[in-house]
């Protein structure tokens, strides 16, 4: 696997990260070496093996349909970096 300049740009963009050139080169080299290291998994025979998603012993963890939370607008806004009249404020998202 070669984690090249185009890949790191695409991946960084998906993750909403952006670096100066020298950092980008460093991260690219790091990820590339990690990916080379994980290549060893290709040697494992996984034919017929179901992926293991969770080791929790439970299933069907459900809650009843009851309103138990909410009405914390002021607490939410107190934590927000920018807000106006009970709304979160962000740079304009153009449609």
């Amino acid at each position, binding site marked *: 696997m070669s*984690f090249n300049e185009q*890949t*790191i740009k*695409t*991946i*960084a963009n*998906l*993750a*909403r*990260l*952006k*670096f100066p050139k020298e950092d980008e080169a460093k*991260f690219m080299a*790091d*990820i590339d*070496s*990690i*990916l080379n*290291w*994980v290549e*060893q*998994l*290709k040697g*494992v025979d*996984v034919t017929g*093996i*179901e*992926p*293991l*998603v*969770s*080791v*929790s*012993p*439970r299933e069907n*963890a459900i*809650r009843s349909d009851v309103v138990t939370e909410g009405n*914390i607008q002021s*607490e*939410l806004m107190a*934590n*927000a*970096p*920018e807000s106006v009249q009970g709304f*979160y404020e*962000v*740079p*304009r*998202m*153009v449609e």
Partner: protein
Amino acid sequence: MTELVNLHISEALDLLNKKEISSVELTKAHLSEMEKARFLNAYITETPERALADAEASDKRRANGDSLGALDGIPIANKDLYCTAGIRTTAASKMLSHFVPPYESTVTQKLKDAGTVMLGKVNTDQFAMGGSTMTSYFGVTKNPWTDEKGEYSLVPGGSSGGSAAAVSAGLCMGATGSDTGGSIRQPASFCGITGIKPTYGRCSRYGIVAFASSLDQAGPMARSVKDCALMLREMAGADGHDSTVAELPVPDFTAALTGDIRGKKIGIPKEYRPDGLNAEVARVWDKGIQLLQDAGAEIVDISLPHTKYALPVYYIVACAEASSNLSRYDGVRYTERVSGHTLDEMYENTRTDGFGPEVIRRILLGTFVLSAGFYDAYYTRAQRVRRLIYEDFKKAFETVDAIVVPAAPTPALSYEAMKNMSPVDTYLGDVFTTPSSLAGVPSLSLPVGLSNTGLPIGLQIIGKHFDENTVFQVGDVLEKAAGFNLMPHRVKG
């Protein structure tokens, strides 16, 4: 009572109940020790006022004969990954450096309800990503154990390095840690203390800043197996907030400390003894095996054939989950914000500024292994191998009661050594801890011997799912047999 800070929790509880000491005295002793040891940088946030208020309330309960919690009056520290209502919770990151949660994590709430006194929030690797606390935005924590020259040049391990250092140096009696791939067990080994990663699903993850949801587990760190057993009982249990917590009764783990392991089958997996295993680690491991055999356990050679794949599987799975879990830190609702002209620009500026390099590396890796065209080759394949690792343990536990392996491949390393390591080299430090994380089985780390340079070396005792009892039972016997009762040199003050 000059050495209040050396007491075990179980001993302190005795003295408190006999009213020979008060919680305020105990707390003050720790606060003063914290002050002397500030250079260790174990704490990110000290909460002395809260601690004294907690202690006074506890003393009052005792004096009035009110009902007491199981850990009433015991001063503890919380890893700064646990959200604590009204107290800054940073995950050792710039991103959350000013975040004050309006809610309390289930585990810290349970400990509060058990009567503990909170001394403060201890350091960790940033978002629990690392094995040294070197990725903390608040600076590295120093291991209280010194090098040959008597200098504080060693890392405490990580990510729960602040917890381990604080427990080891007498800056708290016990601490919460969290373990995703070894973050309790490796620092416990580096700092010569005891810690347990319980079975996945034993403790609630609610209110703990998430790293990798299918692996994260809360656990206690303290100076004895018994103390860990006491703490875990209070921390564990069903929680309506976390779907993955088992709805099983939490036993009194201390009842399992019978001191008798005669006839217990202890598995020794050959895969944990690769060529080039550190000789001192191997020596301590052999010593541990011998001690258990002497105590009447039956030693059984076993095989966990997929062990060597655990580390790459772990890094794929954990980073994939982390890349998604850390998406919420976007500058909109509670984190620091670095502005931008567009929403995307604001996201990029905020996230690139708020995350340290190791966190960024893991987000990049995780994003990549989930991306179109690579998902099956990396993520799905890793999940399949994860099942093989899980089955390895399941099969082994058909014949043995517990498995004993080293906790870390080396004793504590120096900053200098770690600074120059490549990411992959640092990941190798988790080689002995990630298999049981992936399988979700409980695993205790306790100090059993010293290296040639006088540094602690720990062993792990791994048990069946939800059989922490056996883990504690074997650990307790090994602890007594090893007689490891050393603490680092007390800080002069």
